[in-house]
């Protein structure tokens, strides 16, 4: 018998877990019954005039709470929230990198928290379709004040909160620093040494990369310079330059077209292939999944262009400590066949907070009021810490007093500000950074990089992709196939051109039912047109 169970894995393990919890009724303490049992006595010893309702909220466990602070469930900030907020909150941490899987298991076992949040709108839509969360239009209308007026001021948020025409989540806008996502960096000192300008077109980009390769700028007499390296953001950057993104749908003459099989995507593949064939891209990027190699090449001064994100502090500092004369600066997207396009910018909403379908009206009311409070005032100390203890205000910017103290005592608290109005301004960076020369230098580059990242618009024709089960099914099978074809296009030399590869990818797309999904996606677009604008 041990044998038979020993052969199971994956899905079966999950199935096992599901049924165990069903049979054993899973002794979870954050169920829907908590409302009845709530009393003021649990509110930190203070005799509250009116008993606060208990609600539970999911959160990411990023492992940032040091043991002296307690843990994610219980620490200075959870106590602060319970004392100052309008509800008693029990937090349910899920590991960041398997959040959805863990949440799914909690939901399936009936032990999911009242408020469930994720960044991924698709996930929230899936939960809505699964019936795990409930629509909240009437409750927002009835109980909310702050969020209601916030939403009225920022109608652009609304499409993201809607699933099948109903509002399923609340959210707030991301700050500009978290809207900006991808970025490119270039060694300015290399450009200067070779008398070159930052490239503004594809041709110039190739020119610069070729010169970098030939020039042996680290002067070790070996031809070991790799002009362009990248982390997992790299392919995205190369696609975005051509106004294509692998998971996005684009509107062409009023018809939705999937990004990964578009002509622009193909041109971008051809661009990457040429870079690879000429030896301008790291030849071993395929196995460099964690970007260790790229980081090493960059920080040891063997690479001249890095495709990554707009904010890369450790890369900057490590490079500087190896080569104090190095200058690493943000590179603006250059013009391609399809004009000048911005790199990936995240969708504007921050996390989407949804309501468990098991919640009763009084709990919903408490949760809505709690969220109102959080959006209004609650978020501030959670992001900045306590004034004159953790930060002081200098030129309107919050300056951290003791970086170490801030890191241990405040850094983790941002997880609790589920909706907030936090936004960094580029001009704050140098006030906010540590005072040493290196940090100040990076603050300048960082401010510049953020400005560059926001300068050009990232093409996003519709706010989010169709939330169709057929589509996510198709994508799950299509993506690995496409990744493989794309790897072949880039690294396969003469065995596969971008055109031939795209031909194959499109064939696979149709074979897997892509034509039907195209049709469904366009029907979805026609139906939801109003909601999407």
């Amino acid at each position, binding site marked *: 018998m041990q044998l038979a169970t*020993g052969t199971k*894995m994956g*899905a079966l393990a999950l199935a096992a877990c599901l*049924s165990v919890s069903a049979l054993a009724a899973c002794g979870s303490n954050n169920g829907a019954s908590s409302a009845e049992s709530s009393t003021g006595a649990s509110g930190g010893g203070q005799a509250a005039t009116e008993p606060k309702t208990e609600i539970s909220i999911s959160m990411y466990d990023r492992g940032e709470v040091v043991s002296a602070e307690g843990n994610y469930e219980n620490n200075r900030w959870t106590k602060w929230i319970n004392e100052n907020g309008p509800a008693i909150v029990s937090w349910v941490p899920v590991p960041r990198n398997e959040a959805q899987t863990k949440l799914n298991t909690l*939901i*399936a076992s009936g032990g999911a928290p009242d408020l469930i949040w994720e960044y991924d709108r698709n996930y929230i839509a899936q939960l809505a379709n699964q019936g795990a969360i409930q629509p909240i239009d009437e409750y927002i209308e009835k109980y909310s004040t702050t969020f209601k007026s916030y939403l009225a001021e920022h109608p652009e948020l609304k499409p993201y909160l809607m699933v099948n025409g109903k509002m399923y989540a609340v959210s707030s806008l991301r700050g500009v620093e978290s809207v900006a996502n991808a970025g490119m960096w270039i060694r300015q000192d290399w450009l200067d040494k070779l008398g070159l300008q930052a490239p503004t077109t594809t041709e110039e980009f190739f020119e610069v990369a070729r010169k970098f390769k030939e020039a042996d700028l680290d002067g070790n007499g070996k031809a070991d310079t790799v002009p362009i390296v990248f982390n997992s953001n790299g392919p995205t950057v190369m696609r975005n330059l051509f106004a294509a993104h692998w998971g996005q749908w684009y509107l062409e003459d009023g018809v939705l077209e999937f990004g990964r099989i578009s002509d622009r995507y193909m041109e971008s593949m051809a661009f990457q292939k040429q870079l690879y064939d000429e030896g301008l891209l790291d030849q071993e990027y395929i196995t460099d999944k964690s970007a260790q*190699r790229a980081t090493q090449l960059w920080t040891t001064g063997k690479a001249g262009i890095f495709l990554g994100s707009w904010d890369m502090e450790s890369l900057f500092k490590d490079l500087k400590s190896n080569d104090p004369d190095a200058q690493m600066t943000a590179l603006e997207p250059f013009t391609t066949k399809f004009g000048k396009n911005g790199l990936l910018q995240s969708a504007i909403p921050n996390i989407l907070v949804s309501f468990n379908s098991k919640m009763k009206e009084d709990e919903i009311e408490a949760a809505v009021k709690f969220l109102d409070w959080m959006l209004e005032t609650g978020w501030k100390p959670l992001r900045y810490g306590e004034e004159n203890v953790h930060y002081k205000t200098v030129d309107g910017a919050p300056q951290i007093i003791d970086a170490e103290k801030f890191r241990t005592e405040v850094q983790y608290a941002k997880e609790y500000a589920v909706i907030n109005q936090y936004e960094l301004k580029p001009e704050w960076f140098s006030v906010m950074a540590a005072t040493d020369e290196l940090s100040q230098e990076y603050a300048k580059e960082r401010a510049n990089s953020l400005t560059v990242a926001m300068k050009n618009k990232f093409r996003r024709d519709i706010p989010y992709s169709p939330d169709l089960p057929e589509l996510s099914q198709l994508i799950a099978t299509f993506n690995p196939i496409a990744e493989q074809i794309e790897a*072949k296009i880039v*690294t396969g030399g003469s065995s596969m051109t971008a055109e031939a590869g795209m031909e194959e990818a499109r064939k696979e797309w149709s074979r897997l039912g892509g034509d039907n999904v195209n049709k469904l996606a366009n029907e979805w677009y026609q139906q939801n047109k109003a909601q999407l604008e």
Partner: protein
Amino acid sequence: MKVSVRKGLRRDRSLYLMLFPVIVFYALFKYSPLFGEIIAFKNYRFVDGIVGSDWVGLNNFRMLFGSADFWRVLRNTLLLNVYSLAVGFPVPIVLALLLNEVRVEGYKRLVQNLLYVPHFISWVVLGGILIALLSPSTGVVNLVLTHVFGIEPIYFMAKSAWWPVAYTASSIWREAGWGTILYLAAMASIDPQLYEASRIDGAGKLRQIWHITLPGIRGTIAILLILRMGSMMDVGLEQTLALQNDSVLDVADVISTYVYRVGLQNMNYSYTTALGLFQSLIGLILVVGVNRIIRLFGERGLW
């Protein structure tokens, strides 16, 4: 008869009492979860629960066998397992035979310990080491290939032809040493008089291995082979995720990675449970089949 059962129960009640928690453990954590298998025949949705979801008969299986992906991941899983069975299974036996012949005790201990070390390193770390070792530009293996043998560097981890080789080799690297433990234990239990007798008859080392040591561990080999057959449909998720990359997915996408992607990441629980059930069924058939074959050879099987 009835009386004697009761008598026996009373006489050994402390023993039965001690057995009780184990039975409860198995019932609760090994048998009752099997009930969850019914979602393979349902269209499982969170909100409806396991019992409440709609029955869909064999739909999930029909979808499974009708999908091209399924046959691809099945083929890859079986191929990788056949490789590691054909190449990987004899390695610990050979290693154990070699170790058994080492006469200097301290040296033997040292070698054994060195062989066990990789078993305790996680795949994520081993994967990183392997990728670095096999890198065409900076890896040791390729440096040797180019400088000693004059062969062009080979990108082992990114070539579909080489990847299974690297995969199998890495499994051996990590597990072969650990696998010797059971064989060494079996060898230790062989009667030393047999060796003495054979020496008197003039048998050399090889003869001794062939006629005494190997027959002495035959039973252990048989049992381990049966156990290994039970996992013919498994490929470790961790190892595969650590080693695979985009350009080898045609040989590196296996059942476990597929289940992870389709089932857990895309919430197709019923579909992947059907796959898991199928996988277990094949595993069971293989175990029972090999067990029978081994008994036909006159060895003691698992049961």
